[in-house]
């Protein structure tokens, strides 16, 4: 266990009231593991990821729970101590490689800046490492490209630069916050393969934040599904796809476009929208959209495993929609 998040709650004071963006989130990741956190926009997955590195710290933010890493609770570290962890032990890449690099500095300078923030090396040495890093993530002509500005790279190449930078100090954990969302599908596959390769070759633990179950299926070992600020299900990749426990997961799987089935007239969707996080329901947060809701759902759901009150045997029956996993349209329980 290299990193362990326990009962993490992040809320922000806004003009409209306190938004509880993340509530009671717990998960952990082992060395060499790829954990995917999936969820739709606003489900709290990015806030969770950024809170690990303290990037959500702000005067209006309140953070409780713990992030245990290397025997320390990162949420309790002061900025100076956290700075030592950022980049060096836990590195992060972001969704939009177009805006995540500073447009006015050469990519080499930005990698050098990262190295020199943590290691006492001279600029020349750091630049040589930058060239090696760019080469290792598959950027052609790194000796020349190291002098180019971010706008002279394509989206996929910029994400490779971000990854090269993240790897500069050989971190233990890489947090990838929607790393492929802004990229073309063909480029997405290349970036995922690169992450997979780094994970296998370096034993790098990867926390992959995504809304794309296709991406999850491609590389993840384990999956945590987030909904309305909570993790509703945490399972291995196989279990998630073949034995999902939470109706929200059924809905996600049911809404996938599949090539191995006759083409539906319309893709399935989950009716309704997530609850406001200003004033979330005390019971199951998915209940209002769930066709299988019953009395018990108004009580806070169990914290271990999946957050659903249904009996496992009932689940197996209820999630079957025409022989495949999905969420039924009408209340049939």
């Amino acid at each position, binding site marked *: 266990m290299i990193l362990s998040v326990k009962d993490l709650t992040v809320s922000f004071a806004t003009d409209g009231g306190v938004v509880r963006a993340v509530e009671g989130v717990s998960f952990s990741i082992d060395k060499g593991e790829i954990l995917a956190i999936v969820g739709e926009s606003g489900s709290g997955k990015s806030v969770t990821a950024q809170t690990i*590195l303290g990037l959500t710290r702000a005067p209006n933010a309140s953070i409780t729970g713990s992030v245990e890493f290397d025997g320390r609770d990162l949420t309790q570290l002061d900025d100076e101590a956290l700075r030592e962890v*950022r*980049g060096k032990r836990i590195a*992060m890449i*972001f969704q*939009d490689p177009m805006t995540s690099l*500073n447009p006015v500095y050469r990519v080499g300078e930005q990698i050098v800046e990262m190295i020199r*923030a943590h290691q006492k090396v001279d600029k020349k040495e750091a630049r040589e490492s930058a060239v090696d890093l760019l080469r290792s993530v598959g950027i052609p002509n790194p000796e020349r490209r190291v002098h180019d500005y971010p706008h002279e790279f394509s989206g996929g190449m910029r994400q490779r630069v971000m990854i090269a930078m993240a790897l500069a100090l050989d971190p233990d954990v890489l947090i990838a916050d929607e790393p492929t969302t802004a990229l073309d599908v063909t480029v997405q596959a290349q970036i995922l393969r690169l992450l997979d390769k780094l994970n296998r070759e370096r034993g790098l633990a990867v926390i992959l934040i995504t809304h794309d179950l296709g991406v999850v299926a491609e590389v993840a070992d384990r999956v945590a599904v987030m909904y309305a600020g909570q993790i509703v299900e945490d399972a291995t990749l196989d279990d998630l796809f073949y034995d999902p426990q939470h109706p929200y997961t059924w809905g996600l799987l049911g809404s996938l476009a599949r090539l191995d089935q006759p083409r539906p007239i319309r893709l399935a969707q989950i009716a309704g929208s997530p609850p406001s996080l200003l004033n979330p329901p005390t019971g199951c947060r998915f209940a209002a959209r769930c066709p299988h809701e019953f009395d018990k759902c108004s009580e806070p759901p169990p914290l271990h495993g999946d957050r659903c009150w249904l009996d496992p045997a009932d689940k197996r029956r209820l999630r079957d929609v025409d022989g495949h996993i999905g969420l039924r349209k009408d209340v049939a329980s």
Partner: protein
Amino acid sequence: MLRFAVRRLFGMAAVLFAISVIVFLIFNVIPNSDPAQRIAGKNANPELIARVRADLGLDQSIVTQYLTMMKQIFTGTLTSYASSQNVGEQIWKGLPATLSLCIGAAVLWMALAVVFGYLSAVHAGKFTDRTLTILALVGISVPVFWLAAILLYYLSFKAQIFPTSSYVPLTKNPGQWAYHLVLPWITLAVLFVGFYSRVLRSNMLDVMNEDYVRTARAKGISERQIRIKHVLRNSMIPIITLFGLDFGAVVGGGAILTETVFNINGVGLYAGQAIGSLDLPPLMGVTMFGAFFIVLFNTVVDVLYAFLDPRIRLGEAAPA
């Protein structure tokens, strides 16, 4: 680069041409501006007025008059109607004082604006920011002539900390030069310090939310370095544009009030006197001189821009 230079040169010529035409026309339509009448005196008879008019070439068509004036400008023979002095020489004589005033004030206003804007942004919403905000608004609102008068009255006349007025050339005595210019520098800089620090503050607050600042933070760079290398550096780009425009404008006539109140014998004071006597040649000369500086600094800023923001290449459209 060559295409850029050529295009810029053409643009400059077009702007200067347009300005000269407008100034000339305005002068010809405002009432009571007939130089012949003024020069001939209050009780002159019509013949005298007619003779003066013929001497000055004012009896010719307006187009001919304009062309003559342009020819004089380009040959450096433009002379004042009122004093018969050569306009070019007068501007040249006033230039050291005006540049001393403007460059000094510009250094002061940029330095203070960066410091105040930076502090304001870093402490946004806190006491420092609120105080600086109020000071900035005061600085923007205070009229230059009032501020100049107040400074002169209290610091020069009452407390006698600073000399009352006039200009000592730098070549004559650098110490006295600076000493005499302190109050004018402050007077001229106050407005810009207030304005620029507000603009810088809001730029910095915008840039702080940029993704690349989050990246920098995730890299483990110190907060101080993030603010200076990433936030301030990127926030300065629009400030440089403003500076180019304003500095050109200040050299080209924006310092009229300051020069007048402090009795600095510069281009501004010369322009002020020409306005007082409705003397077209010096007005035209000073206006063209000012316009030239504004256009020039605009071009300088565009070149500088390409260095500050590598996404911009001269002679190409900026990327979306």
